[in-house]
């Protein structure tokens, strides 16, 4: 059978359409002849000329310009031009700000490197000795144990308060997060007075059970308990935020596939919460590395003890070297965290318009849940609170007891005397929160939107500085402050800069979580609609990350309220915070005098915490 020879039918003519033959081979299309001849495209001549202009390396190098414009006008031209260019090219601004923060962050390691030069063989010998290894081992042991403990406490609490119908969960949220506010050594002190072998607990139990002596609370048990109770709020807050951002559709899909509620939690919810848990666990681990007050009060030697002993003997160089070791330890921990975090991206695929999640019903588990929450709250908040109130009661006027040496001024501080430190505390902490969030924003944006080796390195260094005791950061700023910017030395801006270094990991963590949840296409959509990057930031990004941003700011506020070494060393003269009042009085065993500032610290910190919790649960 023969087939007819029919030629190809010609395609219908389309207006403006270039015929098939010419399009068929892309090579032909690429011929510059065709395109260059269209008036619409810039002629190659024009392209060449812009090339020429762009390649001038120095602006002032053209003789033409120099001969006709005076230097003043030239300068004004360049500056005006730069400002206009900057306004239109705000990613330059982003890079510049990130550079500024990078410089700040690098200050501390640089100081350590410079200072440790003179440390010499002696320091290395100490470093490599078995006793140091033992101390390092103890440090890591405590860090790991506390992290596990804090996670075990915080995750159920976060779940109960954010995803179930636990009665009074708003109140519980505030109370569960409150221990963050208390300085670690205060809690340690109170716990010792309660739980030490002959402490309050023993005195209560003796008539009942005849217990003569409680097992020693000092050392690992005490350090573990106290540090867990102080640090679990860090994980609690991050996980709670993540739970609120969970897409209920995921769990519903799992239920649909036949998984029971418990299985859903273990196999669907928990893996999704993993990044938040890891972020909080990282903070906890680094906190344990840097803590000094609590562990020493509890008689457990960690690496900070080694650093501090060098400060006590005024060997700043050896102290710097050991601090560097701490930084390396922190970097190792960060590396491990990165490995376990993997490469998962957490941006939502849909445009973030998911439904509200329904609170899980506890039913018969309500009582045990309440018991658990109540127990943790009692231990972490109730006990310290009770201790403080007890001190207040002891120092109450009229209750003072004289002794044969006359009275000592261990009565309560007057509230009016506390107004000034309270004001300073609030001011400094608020400014610290604002400044840190602002400066962390460029880094967080770079890390999330344009991940690369450098932004990764920046983030690592920022976190590594979090592992250092405050005194190290303070001394680094003293060194650089007095030599580079003496006019700013011991002023509020420099102290704030040091605060930023101290707290930036908290901000980066919070911002990274919220930014990561926001799909980048939202920002791209804004740009496609003609908004410049700054406008996109203002109109789209900021409103959407606002909840996470304020949560991060709150965390920084709470941590800054109790900050001590940097405040002591870098604050302007006469600057007096509540944390300082607490510390100075406890140090001298004026417990009653320490009680009121500590209580005021607690109260003032709980106000923004409560407000944010209410706002969170309402929205």
């Amino acid at each position, binding site marked *: 059978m023969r087939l007819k020879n029919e030629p190809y039918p010609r395609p219908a003519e389309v207006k403006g359409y270039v015929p098939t033959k010419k399009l068929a081979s892309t090579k032909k299309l690429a011929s510059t002849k065709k395109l260059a001849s269209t008036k619409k495209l810039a002629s190659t001549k024009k392209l060449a000329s812009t090339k020429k202009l*762009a390649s*001038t*390396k120095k*602006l002032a190098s053209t003789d*033409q*310009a120099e001969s006709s*414009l005076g230097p003043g006008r030239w300068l004004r*031209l*360049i500056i005006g*031009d*730069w400002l206009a260019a900057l306004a239109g090219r705000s*990613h*330059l601004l982003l*890079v510049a700000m990130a*550079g*500024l923060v*990078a*410089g700040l962050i*690098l*200050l501390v390691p*640089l100081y350590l490197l*410079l200072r440790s030069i003179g440390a010499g063989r002696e320091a290395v010998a*100490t470093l490599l000795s078995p*006793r*140091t290894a033992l101390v390092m081992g103890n440090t890591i042991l405590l860090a790991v144990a506390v992290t596990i403990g804090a996670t075990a406490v915080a995750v159920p609490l976060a779940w109960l308060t954010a995803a179930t119908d636990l009665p009074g969960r708003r109140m519980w949220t505030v109370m569960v997060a409150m221990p963050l506010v208390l300085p670690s050594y205060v809690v340690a002190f109170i716990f010792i007075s309660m739980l*030490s072998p*002959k*402490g309050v607990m023993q005195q209560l139990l003796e008539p009942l059970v005849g217990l003569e002596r409680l097992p020693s609370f000092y050392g690992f048990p005490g350090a573990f308990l106290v540090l867990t109770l102080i640090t679990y709020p860090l994980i609690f807050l991050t996980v709670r935020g993540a739970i609120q951002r969970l897409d209920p559709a995921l769990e519903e899909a799992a239920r649909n596939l036949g998984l029971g509620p418990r299985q859903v939690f273990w196999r669907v919810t928990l893996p999704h919460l993993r990044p938040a848990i890891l972020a909080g666990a990282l903070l906890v681990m680094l906190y344990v590395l840097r803590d000094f007050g609590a562990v020493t009060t509890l008689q457990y030697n960690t690496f900070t003890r080694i650093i501090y002993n060098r400060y*006590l*003997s*005024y060997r700043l160089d050896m102290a710097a070297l050991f601090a560097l070791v701490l930084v390396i330890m922190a970097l190792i921990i960060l590396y491990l965290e990165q490995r376990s975090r993997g490469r998962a991206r957490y941006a939502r695929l849909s445009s973030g318009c998911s439904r509200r999640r329904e609170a899980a019903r506890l039913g018969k588990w309500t009582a045990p849940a309440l018991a658990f929450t109540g127990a943790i709250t009692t231990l972490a908040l109730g006990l310290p609170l009770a201790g403080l109130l007890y*001190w207040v009661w002891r120092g109450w006027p009229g209750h003072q*007891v004289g*002794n*044969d*040496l*006359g*009275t*000592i*001024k*261990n009565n309560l501080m007057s509230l009016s005397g506390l107004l000034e430190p309270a004001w300073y505390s609030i001011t400094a902490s608020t400014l610290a929160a604002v400044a840190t969030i602002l400066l962390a924003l460029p880094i967080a944006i770079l890390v999330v939107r344009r991940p*690369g*080796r*450098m932004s990764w*390195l920046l983030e690592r260094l920022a976190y590594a500085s979090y592992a250092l005791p405050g005194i190290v950061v*303070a*001394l680094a700023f*003293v060194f*650089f402050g007095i*030599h580079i910017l*003496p006019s700013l030395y011991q002023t509020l801006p420099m102290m704030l800069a040091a605060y930023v270094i101290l707290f930036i990991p908290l901000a980066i963590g919070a911002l990274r979580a919220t930014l990561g949840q926001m799909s980048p296409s939202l920002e791209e959509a804004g740009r496609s609609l003609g908004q410049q990057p700054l406008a996109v930031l203002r109109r789209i990004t900021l409103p959407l990350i606002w909840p996470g941003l304020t949560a991060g700011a709150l965390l920084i506020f709470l941590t800054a309220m109790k900050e001590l070494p940097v405040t*002591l*060393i870098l604050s302007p003269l006469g600057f007096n915070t509540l944390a300082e009042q607490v510390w*100075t*009085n*406890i*140090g*001298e*065993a004026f*417990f009653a005098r320490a009680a009121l500032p500590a209580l005021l610290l607690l109260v003032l910190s709980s106000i923004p915490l409560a407000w944010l919790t209410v706002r969170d649960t309402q929205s």
Partner: protein
Amino acid sequence: MNLTKSALHQGTSGVAWIERVINRRRNRGWLIIGMGVLILASGLVACQPAAEVTEGVGKAGEGDPESKRLVIYSGRSESLVGPIIEQFEQERGIEVEVRFGGTAEMAGVLLEEGAESPADLFYAQDPGGLGAVQAAGLLAPLPAEIRELVPDRFVSDSGEWVGISGRARTVVYNTKAISKPEEQLPGDLSGFTDPAWHGRLGWAPTNGSFLAMVTGIRAIWGEEKTRNWLAEMQANEPAVYESNSAIVAAVGAGEIDVGLVNHYYLYRFLAEEGEGFGARNYFLPGGGPGSLIMVSGVGQLKSAENQENGLEFIRFLLSKDGQQYFADETFEYPLVAGVTTVAGLPPLAELDKQAVEIELSQLADVAGTQEMLLSLGIIE
């Protein structure tokens, strides 16, 4: 106009060029680091040793009746010296700005600040800090008239710092466990090495006063005897506390039976908890190093701006009024003769007969003490 336009073009393309450089992925990171390095480079430049400050010639404001200002870095806590400073402010009309902190921290800050320090005076809780600052050459010699206000041994041999008030080392004991202190407690520090004291003792080896005490012991007993004493004490496994007040609290509760502390902490506990508090002080009668007097001291910085005001303050502290304050309010020992200590405290002369010969400067060699403690494994 044309020129401006082309100049603008140049500028824009200059920016565009930078932009291009930035926007190449591999460049961006280096740019950020470059900026950071720029800041650090200025730090390296700043590492140049600070210029020497000529002695005796003060900066602007010295002797100037208009400048009524004084800046003190204090290692003594505000609750102790705050009132006396306020009193000074009110009486002399000089505005005193104080930075409070731990002695070691304040000394560390002074060492970092060097000659640029804004501080006029350094008021330290124990000689170690002053010694370190002095060794760095930051202190100025005090005029003779001030040095002569206190006995010679309370002045450093370089004349750069002077003691203000003293605290006695003492043994605090639990009244329930030790009902008859004179019989049950040894008369000398070396008595505590007896195995009978195993597990009943508490000390704070990282505390400044303890370090000063051991330094004094080294000066009195010599290196070898001190070392042996420390080793034997360590063999008794004393409980290690962070601070003196923790020891007193522990003794009062009955956790340990005795502790080596400074004498005045007890009174704060007595004030809060009343006479029922189960601890009391016991001053070792031997007059040996166990009852050393720790002095707090003041030094003036070479770079001080308000030198006259600083000297005024030291004079005030060493005046009858100042010394009486320490005697009455903080229960310390005045160092100036003729001031009565509060009742109940054994007089100075009785206490450290043997220690009379120790120079204050000898108490400042904390580094050596630390080395000894390190080698014995008492501290890390």
